[in-house]
């Protein structure tokens, strides 16, 4: 008897989850109505109360944006690793750089520098940047390129926000951070000022003095470049925040906070090592 009631209650609950009323269920089981009725009323109250628990729209949008960015980054990574095998990457990149220029043409490569994510020329732009970093002569050149590319990412974030493309902002912010952190990493290994091509001062008659002068000069040059880049990037992002649609404002605000923090960290690090 009880087992029968448990089964009927379960069937009725399924019907109620699908929007049917208590009465419909009771009419279907008139013999059990007296026992079933109170249980269905309690169940109805539980259904009503629990269905009132809803995620906030801002939360929903925030997580959605994070997941899209994660998927995008995952996809990019897979595609990149498919395109370029791990072994002999430097050689492949050197060959690729020549091929890219030959096949795509100098004009297209130059035009790709202003391409935005999602556009056909954008992968060419990223490949170009990768090639430039791989072929950079010295760590100071690499650091300069990272500063330049971080600023490009910031401008792309601003553009994407203006276009309401929230899903790419997070991935671009991650790339932005990665460029700035790589400056820090180069600086940390303390090779920044000594490897690669020296400026004329380094080849003067007094090598020790020249090296010190060269180091200070390079650091100052980097510091100025980074400081200008900070100004440009934050200006572009701030401007975008004023114009961006509501749907992208939260991600953009987050990107500005991250950009400010990362620039300050990179500048602090450069200044600390200059002392």
């Amino acid at each position: 008897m009880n087992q029968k009631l448990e089964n009927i209650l379960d069937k009725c609950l399924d019907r109620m989850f699908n929007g049917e009323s208590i009465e419909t269920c009771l009419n279907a089981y008139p013999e059990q109505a007296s026992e079933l009725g109170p249980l269905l009323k309690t169940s109805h109250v539980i259904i009503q109360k629990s269905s009132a628990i809803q995620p906030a729209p801002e939360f929903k949008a925030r997580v959605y944006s994070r997941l899209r960015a994660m998927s995008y980054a995952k996809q990019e990574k897979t595609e990149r690793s498919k395109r370029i095998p791990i072994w002999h990457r430097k050689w492949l990149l050197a060959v690729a750089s020549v091929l890219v220029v030959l096949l795509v043409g100098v004009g297209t490569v130059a035009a790709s520098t202003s391409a935005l994510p999602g556009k056909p020329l954008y992968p060419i732009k990223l490949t170009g940047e990768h090639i430039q970093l791989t072929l950079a002569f010295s760590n100071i050149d690499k650091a300069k390129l990272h500063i330049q590319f971080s600023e490009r990412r910031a401008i792309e974030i601003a553009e994407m926000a203006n276009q309401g493309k929230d899903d790419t902002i997070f991935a671009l912010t991650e790339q932005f951070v990665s460029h700035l952190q790589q400056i820090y990493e180069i600086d940390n290994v303390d090779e920044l000022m000594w490897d690669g091509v020296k400026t004329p001062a380094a080849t003067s008659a007094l090598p020790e003095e020249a090296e010190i002068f060269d180091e200070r000069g390079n650091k100052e040059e980097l510091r100025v470049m980074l400081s200008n880049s900070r100004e440009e990037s934050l200006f572009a992002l701030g401007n975008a925040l004023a114009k961006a649609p509501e749907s992208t404002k939260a991600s953009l605000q987050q990107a500005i906070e991250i950009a400010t923090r990362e620039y300050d960290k990179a500048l602090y690090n450069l200044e600390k090592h200059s002392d």
Partner: protein
Amino acid sequence: MSIEKDIVSRAIKGDGAAFAQLYEEHLKRIYRYVYLKVGNRTEAEDLTQEVFVKALEAITTYKWRSLPFNSWLFRIAHNLVVDHFRKQGKVEKIPLDDDMALPSKSNPALAAELALEIKDLTKDIEKLSSAQREVILLRFGAELSTAEVASLLAKSTGTVKALQHNAIVALRKMSSSDK
């Protein structure tokens, strides 16, 4: 192939739009389930977010044969909640907040009343045995079918129906004694 199976297999292959569809489809129920377990909006949001991040990271390891997709998601949610309580060194207890997201937030009086009712409900659910509580949360919070609950809890459907029946009888008694 069912529509969801198709979406899941696209998500496994790295299709971000397919995963976004799964997120849209399951978010509300996962959030509700987690909320009813932790009783706190901030913690419920953090854990819900974590469920989907973990699911995205691990989706390539998911196999339809062993578990339906929504049961897989609820298993992640369940494990995260258990870990959450373990880290905090507390048993599953519901510290309810009043700042929950309710559809009637534009009407503060109604929202407050509803919040109070949900608070009462969760307090009552807390008094159930752990097996009854899990069945009620999975059936009413997560809206899983009896078969899905049975598969998730590794119990027979008969046992789940009995637990469900006993839990509703107990909740009915509690609500009548509250009045």
